[in-house]
Each structure stands twice: as structure tokens, then as C-alpha cells.
């Protein structure tokens, strides 16, 4: 992957890398993709940060517990359901 480096050595607006990182984090099983992403992340601090934060985001989302359905919401649902199915 060609990096577009600015004089500072940081990788700015590296759209291609961002796209590949997102695919990699999304769980695409592709060895070449993984190799490219990890190689790139080793040489680009900005993309390494992006990779790390996206992995954390996906991980956090996967741990997010179900919302508790409030009792009042459930009660209201069942009132509506029973009204609907018994007035057919």
C-alpha cells in the first residue's frame, strides 16, 4: 500500500488505509488484507491509532448489554397486543 506522507511523516487522509482497516476490523478473513493493514499500522502512527480505536469500538459494542425493557413499556405493549388480536 502506498502511503501519502506529509513532511511530518504522519499519514494524513489516507483513505485507502482507512478503508482497509475498517474491513479488517469488520472481521473479513483475508490474510493479505491483514498483512497489509498490520504492516501499514507499524509505520503509520495515525493509522495505528485508528486501528486500535476501531477494534475497541467494535469490541465495546459487542459487550453492550441489552437494554432493559421497562415494566411500563412491556405492560403497554401487551395491552396493545391483546386489544389488537382480540378485536379482529
Amino acid at each position, binding site marked *: 500500500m502506498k502511503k501519502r506522507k506529509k513532511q511530518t511523516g504522519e499519514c494524513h487522509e489516507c483513505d485507502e488505509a*482507512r*478503508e482497509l482497516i*475498517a*474491513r479488517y*476490523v*469488520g472481521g*473479513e478473513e483475508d490474510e493479505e488484507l491483514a498483512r497489509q493493514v498490520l504492516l501499514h499500522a507499524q509505520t503509520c502512527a495515525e493509522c495505528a491509532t*485508528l486501528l*486500535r*480505536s*476501531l477494534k*475497541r*469500538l*467494535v*469490541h*465495546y*459494542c*459487542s*459487550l*453492550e448489554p*441489552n*437494554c432493559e*425493557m*421497562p415494566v411500563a*413499556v*412491556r405492560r*403497554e*405493549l*401487551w395491552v*396493545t*397486543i391483546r386489544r*389488537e*388480536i*382480540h378485536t*379482529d
Partner: protein
Amino acid sequence: MPEHKQLAVATPALPVPDDVLVRRVQAGNTEAFEELVRRYERKVYNITYRLMGNEQDASEALQDAFMRAYRFIGKFQFKSSFFTWLYRIATNVSLSKLRKREKIDTVSIDQPVNEAGDLPFEIPDVKYGPEKLMKQRELRAALQKAVDELPEDYRSVVVLRDLEGLSNEEVSNVLHLSVAAVKSRLHRGRLVLREKLVSYL
């Protein structure tokens, strides 16, 4: 050798498959529909809550979704699984309400709260100290807020895939999108979310 008496072992009854329940509903059995509601009410509430962002709207969308499911279950042709069909209804109902709400709300009553920016990312573990719980609560609230602010196309994909744990294929079935489109929206949605939550990550 005396024959052993066969012991009567109580085996738990297997749950009736969704498809069987759907056929019963189509034949007029309302109790079968109630069983389907019991089976999916929490999952559907999760979807409506994630998409709508507040309890009141989520509750209305939840009721509408099940009412629509009941009214149209006669047309269900078993081309997809029941839950895919139900999730599609719940997603569509929520997005439709969302569009109406956005037309009405010119100013959001939930203004962004600028939290301290340097909270480290916390993975929940078994040692829930009050500080950790607080941070997780903050992160959870920030996540829901960030999801609320996602463009609609990204929001439904992120909710179903990342928060509800559906596979790319299931999301594509629910939303009537190609798997490639799901992946593309998911990637872009995650990038937007990451931008919004960068201080937590």
C-alpha cells in the same frame, strides 16, 4: 435377568419452532402470536430503542412493529426466517418514525454534553467499582448518543450488526441490501462513530 424398569425421565419440552408458530397464527391461533411476542419482545425493544434513542419513541415503535407483524403475518411466505422479517418491520417502523420526528424537531432537546475528554477505554469486567461503573455509564450514554447522531443509513446497519450481533448476511436480509452495501455502510458508520467517540477509545 429381570428386566429393568424404564425410568420415566422428564425431558424439557423443546420450544416450538418459529415457523410452526407462524403457521398457527396464520390459521387463526392468537396464542401462538402471543408466544412469538414473548420470544422477541426484548430483542425488538432493543432495536427500536437503539434506533429511536429514547424510551417513549421506542415503546411506540415496539407496539407498532408487533401490530404490523400481526396484521401482515398472513402474507408471510417463509422466504426468510420470521425474526428477519420481524426485525425488518421493527427497523422500518423505527426509521419511519425517526424521519417524522426529525421533520418536527427543529432543535434537539438533547444538546451534546461535553464530557471530560480523557476517559480511558474500559472493558467491563467483574470488578465493578463505582468509578468504573460511572465510566461505563458515561461511555454507554456517549455510544447511544453517537448512534443517535449517525445518518440513518449507517445507523440501522450499525445497530443491527454491532449492537444486536446479526451477521452481515442477516443484516442484508433485514434491510434488503446487498452484503457489499451492508459492509460498506458498516465501515463508514464505524468510522463516523469512532470520530464521535474518539476521546473514549
